[in-house]
C-alpha cells in the first residue's frame, strides 16, 4: 500500500503553485491525504487528492500570475497580441468584394500564435529573461510582409516587392515597434544562478547550487575583480575564479546564495586561521531580488524561484589587512531559531606587495 501522495498529482500541483504557496498547500493536502488513507483507504485518498489537484489548478495558476508582476505583464502583452491579430482579421472579413491578400491571414496567424504563446508562457512557465530579439525579429518580418503586400500588391512583382521589404520594411518595423507586445525588460546578467548540472540554456555568469531546505546555503563562489576596467572586453572577463591563492593586493569577493526562511536572517563572513581562531568577521547584508535563474528543466523551474526566495551574500575579503598564510572561509546564516554555516573554502594569501 502506498504511503505517499500520488507522485504525478503532487508534481502537477507543485508546478501550478507559486513558491510562496507551496509549503502550506502541499502540506495541507498531504496531511489530509494521510488522514483519509487511514479512514477510507489508499485508493479513496488518492482519488480525493487527484480531485483536489485538478480543481485547484485554475485558481493556483491565476494566483501565481497575479503574484508576479512580470508574469502578469507577459500575460497582458499576450492578450494585446491576440487583440492585434483580431484587428488584422477584421478587414479581411469585411473586404469580400476583393481578393483577400494572403498576407492578412499570415499577419493574423503570427499575432495570434505569438499572443497565445505569451499567454501560455505567462501561465505555465516560470519567469525567464526574454531577450528583445524576438520582438525585433517579429516586428521586422511582419512589417516586411505587410509592406510587400501594400506596395507590391501582387505576388508577380517580386523585385518590387523585395525592394519594398528592404526599403520600407525597416520604416514600418520602427513604426510598429511600440505596438508590438512588450516583453519583460532584460534583467541583466550580473546575478544569474544556474543549477550545478549545467544543463541550462545560455551562459551563466556564476553557477550557484540553490539549496532546497530553508536557510540552506549554496557553495561559496570566489570572484575576483581583475581591475582591467579600461579594456573594451572588461565586461567579458570571467569574474569567478577557481584560484585559492591570492596576492594581498587582490580584490576578492565571496558570494553564496541563501534559501530565505522569512524570519529575519542575518549573515556573516569569517576568516579562521589554521588553529580555528577567528581573525576577521563581518556582517554580510543579504541582497534580495537579484538572482535570476537560467531554466534547466520544468521540474527545476517549478521548484525554484530565486528572485523572491533566495538572498545573495556578496562580501569583499580584506586580504590586504591579513598576514600571509592559509585561512578558512566560513559563511554563517542564522535566524531566530536556526543557524547554518558553510566553511569548506580555504584561501591562501601569498606574500607580496600590499596596496
Amino acid at each position, binding site marked *: 500500500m502506498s504511503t505517499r501522495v500520488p507522485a504525478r498529482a503532487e508534481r502537477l500541483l507543485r508546478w501550478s503553485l507559486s513558491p510562496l504557496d*507551496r509549503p502550506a*498547500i502541499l*502540506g*495541507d*493536502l*498531504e496531511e489530509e491525504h494521510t488522514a483519509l488513507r487511514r479512514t477510507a483507504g489508499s485508493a479513496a485518498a488518492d482519488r480525493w487528492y487527484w480531485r483536489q489537484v485538478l*480543481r485547484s489548478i485554475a*485558481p493556483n495558476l491565476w494566483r501565481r500570475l497575479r503574484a508576479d508582476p512580470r508574469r502578469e505583464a507577459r500575460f497582458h502583452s499576450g492578450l494585446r497580441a491576440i487583440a492585434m491579430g483580431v484587428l488584422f482579421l477584421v478587414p479581411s472579413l469585411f473586404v469580400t468584394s476583393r481578393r483577400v491578400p494572403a498576407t492578412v491571414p499570415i499577419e493574423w496567424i503570427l499575432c495570434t500564435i505569438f499572443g497565445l504563446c505569451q499567454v501560455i508562457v505567462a501561465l505555465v512557465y516560470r519567469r525567464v529573461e526574454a531577450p528583445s530579439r524576438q520582438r525585433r525579429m517579429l516586428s521586422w518580418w511582419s512589417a516586411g510582409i505587410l509592406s510587400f503586400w501594400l506596395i507590391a500588391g501582387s505576388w508577380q512583382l517580386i523585385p518590387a516587392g523585395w525592394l519594398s521589404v528592404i526599403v520600407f520594411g525597416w520604416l514600418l518595423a520602427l513604426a510598429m515597434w511600440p505596438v508590438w507586445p512588450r516583453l519583460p525588460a532584460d534583467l541583466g546578467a550580473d546575478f544569474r544562478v544556474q543549477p550545478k548540472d549545467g544543463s541550462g540554456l545560455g551562459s551563466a555568469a556564476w553557477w550557484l547550487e540553490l539549496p532546497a531546505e530553508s536557510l540552506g546555503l549554496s557553495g561559496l563562489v570566489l570572484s575576483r575583480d581583475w581591475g582591467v576596467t579600461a579594456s573594451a572586453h572588461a565586461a567579458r572577463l570571467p569574474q569567478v575564479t577557481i584560484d585559492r591563492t591570492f596576492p594581498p593586493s587582490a580584490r576578492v569577493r565571496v558570494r553564496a546564495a541563501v534559501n530565505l526562511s522569512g524570519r529575519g536572517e542575518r549573515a556573516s563572513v569569517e576568516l579562521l586561521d589554521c588553529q580555528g581562531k577567528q581573525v576577521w568577521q563581518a556582517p554580510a547584508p543579504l541582497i534580495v531580488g537579484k538572482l535570476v535563474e537560467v531554466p534547466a528543466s520544468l521540474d527545476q523551474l517549478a521548484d525554484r524561484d530565486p528572485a523572491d526566495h533566495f538572498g545573495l551574500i556578496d562580501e569583499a575579503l580584506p586580504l590586504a589587512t591579513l598576514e600571509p598564510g592559509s585561512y578558512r572561509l566560513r559563511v554563517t546564516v542564522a535566524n531566530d*531559531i536556526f543557524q547554518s554555516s558553510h566553511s569548506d573554502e580555504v584561501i591562501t594569501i601569498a606574500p607580496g606587495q600590499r596596496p
Partner: protein
Amino acid sequence: MKRPDALGEFEQAVLVAVAHLDDEAYGVTIRREIETRTGRTIAVGALYTAIDRLEAKGFVTSSMSDPTPVRGGRSKRHVRLSPAGRNALRQSREFLSRMWNGLRLEPTRRRV
C-alpha cells in the same frame, strides 16, 4: 458597483470559519470547518485564493509555522482574524439580518 472591501459569500464563510477556529485556523481545519457546516466540497486552491483576497483587504493576517513531520516537513499557514475582519463580519451579519427582518419565506405549495 461592488465595494472593494465587500465580502463575497465564500469569503464570508472563510471568515466565519476562521473566527470559529481561532488559533487553530489553517488550511486543513478551515476547509473541514466549512465542509462540515455547509456540506460543500472546497478546493484547496479556491480556499487559498479567498484567504489571499481577505488578507489583501486586511480582514485576516497569516503567518507560517515551523515545519511539521506529519505534513512532510512543510509549514502551516496560520490565519487569524484581524479587528477589521471582525468588524466586517459583524456589519455583514447586521446588514443581512436587517434585510431578512420581517420576511418569512414559506415553502411554496402547489395548487391541485
